[in-house]
């Protein structure tokens, strides 16, 4: 029943053999040595400082949504760096290889440039997969993880353990793709996988298997996360947080996670079928024996396009928080903004076919998907106009976060312009699969990256209690923007010169000059990476000077700015009562920003658990064993996973209770540590009375959890 694999196979090690470790490769071998040395140094440092216990207690076993969010963002930034290095290698290869003739570096087995075609294929496939699913997605999920519960006044996510599970499964996926660097190879046929190249006949190595199981793990982690987000927003809102008062970022998280929950299973099914083809010898996507390769392409993009909106919508939500704060005005057209968000989410399921207009499906089908795709332009246009009119009659301060947000806005304009070109079949035929498409979607994905950097700078003080250095934030912005211009303007031009995607050897010498410009742009990007490190270093060094109170920016609007900075592990000492759409702005205006609770209640909190980490580890083993076809290890890993799940379910988590006195003490201490915010401070208790309530009057959390939010 199992497919016969080319090459050796042993029952003990499967396809794994010493020859699968590329110790002769001139790039990978030194990199491996470097990583091992850095890893050993890190382990030594942690051991010397005696930090293992701290890391285990506070991070590895945590179920705290903020810490998990920080770990998601850390993972995202590390993978963003890895993806960037891949991008650097792609650009360098094209710059070296362009033109006629044999200009390859023979020592590396390349006929053009310095990479073999097969290695080049692995690099851009890894670049795409990492950037979308292991950089953008964890960064956005991490930010949602931290901010969404705070914005709705919740103590944590609805299912804290599930949250940890989602993170560790995603991390297992990241580990799997990282280990493919040094053990075996990665898939060479694009991040989305071309049918039928991923079939055994055309990809005999283990690369495609790595790709399948990496994607499966990430998809599983993200699906679990999306269930959690939806349950949290539906069930955990503070009293008074009606749907009409939900901050736009939370709205965008809701829409994005509806997309994730409904579309990721489609990817998992598609990949399971690819796995069946490769492992069991079925013919779902083969060219012969009744298989249908375009079925795979349909199934993949049926997930793939909603996924694009899954990553862009939270980014739009971040712009919707940053721009009003620094314009000192409420968001223009809140209702229109929420409607537009859901319009984009709704349309996202009926546009997937525009990824392959060239399939030759006939003008009626083409037209339907073309018009559907253009419909996305309407709500997106509305959003751009609304952000613009948020600034209108505002008082804009150009902080570093605002720089990034406005940069994202301009990238969105370019991405929208080019997207409207690509949505039209008659035009698409000429630029589909060209680097014009690559430049277009990089505009959109960089719009996300800009929004994420803006959001990291914007919410950093909320999470860590001090602001990042403004000057270095701006230096990084300008370097990054210069890099973006220098890499992607030439890429648009190359698209019009007819350069197609994924060429390990760009054959036309006319392109050479533009490749050089792009390589220069990459060098500027490297500088911006350096400036990011400097930004972190300088900010952490000067953290005492940049300490902030609850309302870090003085003009913040939504609920997360009400609680202390850094946020205590219980989020809010007392659950706040929500009175307005922009609660903090409303409280500031009415002078009750500094009201502290006059009484405290006991809080019920979840216990830490290492089970999520264990399940992540066993799933990583499962993925690795399946990739190398080590059946005994796959069986053990699968059994261990299921056993852990059953054990944890049977055990449950009673949680623990922090007494009201303890909370009162913690809250007092947190206040003493925090500086007083600038602006008007009002005495405790100075509010007008009437209907207005600052904090929930409920008896305790347990009671509230049975009742759900106060109103819908």
């Amino acid at each position, binding site marked *: 029943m199992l497919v016969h694999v080319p090459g050796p196979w042993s029952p003990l090690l499967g396809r794994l053999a010493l020859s699968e470790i590329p110790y002769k490769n001139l790039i990978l071998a030194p990199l491996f040595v470097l990583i091992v040395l850095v890893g050993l140094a890190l382990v030594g440092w942690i051991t010397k400082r005696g930090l293992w216990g701290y890391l285990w207690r506070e991070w590895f076993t945590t179920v705290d949504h903020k810490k998990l969010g920080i770990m998601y963002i850390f993972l995202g930034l590390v993978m963003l760096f890895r993806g960037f290095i891949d991008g650097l290698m792609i650009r360098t290869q094209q710059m070296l290889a362009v033109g006629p003739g044999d200009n390859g570096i023979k020592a590396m087995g390349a006929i053009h440039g310095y990479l073999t075609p097969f290695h080049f294929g692995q690099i851009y496939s890894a670049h795409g997969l990492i950037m979308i699913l292991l950089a953008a997605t964890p960064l956005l999920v991490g930010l949602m993880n931290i901010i969404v519960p705070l914005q709705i006044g919740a103590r944590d996510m609805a299912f804290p353990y599930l949250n940890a599970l989602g993170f560790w499964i995603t991390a297992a996926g990241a580990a799997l793709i990282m280990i493919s660097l040094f053990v075996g190879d990665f898939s*060479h046929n694009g991040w989305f996988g071309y049918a039928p190249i991923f079939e055994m006949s055309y990809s005999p190595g283990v690369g495609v298997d790595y790709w399948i199981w990496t994607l499966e793990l990430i998809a599983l982690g993200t699906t679990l996360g999306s269930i959690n987000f939806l349950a949290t927003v539906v069930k955990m809102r503070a009293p008074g947080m009606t749907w009409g008062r939900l901050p736009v970022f939370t709205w965008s998280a809701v829409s994005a996670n509806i997309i994730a929950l409904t579309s990721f299973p489609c990817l998992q099914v598609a990949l399971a079928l690819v796995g069946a083809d490769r492992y069991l010898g079925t013919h779902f996507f083969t060219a012969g024996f009744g298989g249908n390769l375009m079925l795979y392409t349909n199934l993949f993009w049926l997930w793939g396009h909603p996924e694009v909106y899954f990553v862009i919508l939270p980014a739009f939500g971040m712009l919707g928080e940053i721009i009003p704060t620094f314009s000192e005005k409420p968001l223009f057209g809140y209702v229109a903004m929420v409607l537009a968000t859901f319009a984009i989410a709704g349309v996202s399921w009926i546009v997937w076919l525009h990824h*392959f207009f060239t399939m030759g499906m006939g003008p009626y089908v083409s037209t339907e998907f073309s018009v559907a795709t253009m419909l996305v332009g309407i709500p997106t246009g509305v959003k751009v106009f609304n952000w613009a009119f948020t600034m209108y009659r505002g008082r804009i301060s150009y902080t570093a976060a605002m720089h990034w947000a406005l940069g994202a806005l301009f990238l969105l304009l370019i991405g929208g312009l080019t997207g409207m070109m690509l949505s039209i079949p008659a035009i698409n035929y000429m630029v589909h699969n060209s680097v014009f498409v690559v430049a277009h979607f990089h505009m959109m994905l960089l719009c996300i990256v800009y929004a994420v950097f803006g959001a990291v700078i914007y919410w950093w003080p909320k999470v860590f209690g001090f602001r990042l250095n403004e000057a270095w934030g701006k230096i990084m912005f300008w370097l990054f923007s210069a890099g973006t211009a220098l890499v992607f303007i030439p890429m648009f031009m190359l698209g019009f010169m007819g350069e197609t995607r994924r060429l390990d050897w760009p054959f036309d010498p006319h392109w050479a000059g533009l490749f050089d410009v792009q390589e220069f742009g990459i060098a500027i990007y490297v500088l911006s990476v350096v400036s990011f490190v400097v930004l972190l270093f300088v900010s952490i060094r000067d953290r005492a000077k940049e300490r902030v109170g609850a309302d870090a920016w003085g003009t913040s609007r939504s609920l997360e700015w009400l609680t202390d900075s850094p946020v205590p592990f219980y989020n809010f000492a007392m659950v706040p009562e929500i009175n307005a759409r922009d609660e903090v702005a409303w409280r500031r205006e009415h002078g009750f920003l500094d009201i502290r609770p006059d009484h405290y209640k006991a809080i019920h909190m979840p216990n830490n658990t290492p089970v999520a980490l264990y399940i992540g580890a066993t799933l990583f083993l499962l993925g690795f064993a399946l990739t190398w076809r080590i059946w005994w290890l796959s069986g053990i890993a699968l059994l261990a996973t299921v056993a852990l799940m059953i054990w944890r379910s049977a055990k449950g988590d009673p949680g623990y209770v922090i007494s009201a006195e303890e909370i009162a003490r913690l809250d007092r201490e947190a206040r003493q540590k925090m500086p007083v915010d600038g602006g008007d401070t009002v005495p405790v208790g100075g509010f007008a009375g009437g209907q207005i309530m600052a904090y929930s009057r409920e008896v305790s959390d347990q009671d509230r959890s049975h009742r759900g939010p106060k109103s819908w």
Partner: protein
Amino acid sequence: MTTKKWLQMGQYAAILLTTMLLGGCARHSPWWIFDPKGVGARASYDYMMIDIAVMLSIVGLTAIMIVWFMIRYRKGGGGGKYDGKWSHSMTIEFFTWGIPIAAVAFLSWAVAINGSFALNPYNPTVITHTMKPKGDPVDVDVIATDWQWLFIYPQFHHIAVANELVVPAHTPVFFKLTSTAVTTDFFVPQLVGMIDVMPGMRTKDALEVDHRGSYQGIAADYCGAGTSWMLFKTKVVSMRDFHRWVKTAEAQPETMNYHQFNEFARPYINVHYKTPIYGHVEPGLFNHVILEVMNGKKWPLPMFMTENMYAYLQKQAKEHRA
């Protein structure tokens, strides 16, 4: 650096920019998409210009508006009146929805719907509606292998040529396309847009060219290690030259039946630009290949072609010299 030097550099930059922009008008322009020579490619270009004009007028004005807001409403100095309460206006809302809806409606009709029919690869009305009654279209069957192209002319004694396409000018050319192993795209940037070629399936495309010349054809979709080399020149010649070429081709001794095609279709990277001509191929080879692929025929990739390419290419160079 002195001001003079800066000015000089500015001049160079201006000259460079102008040259690049004027490059679009040059005869052998590297800007293939802006220099269409085929009927289909030109129609695509026209639609693109309509789309860019409409979208740029909106996006450009929006960008100017945003920049103006950014300057006028900056804190301390912009001069714009601050109104921290203002967050809604039905009039503005009308335009923020109305403008995108109007633009999308216009583009849907003018470009998306019309363009989809005008450039439908199976029946592009820009070509078929202008066909003269006596127009004598040329049929070409295209088979993509890993990683070569085979162009078969069934009307002309089933001659075939690999990795080079020769077509007459001012004449519609109708393609049927399939692939042996994996999917790729048939694409001649200056003449005709992309169409997928898929194993076990048949797609169609059409071409008409007004200008004689030689144009670069590309395998526009990743199809494995040899993708970058899977190029073909498209030679557009006068009808007389075309018939002359057909005569010489028919006289070629090389022939190809399905068995020989099997050899031809094995993974091969065409580093040395071989363009063999076959005086005759088995009639119905195109359908034969599709049927075989549907019945499970494969041309698997050998393991050694997934690793050190240089060793493979050296081996090929040795064979080439021999």
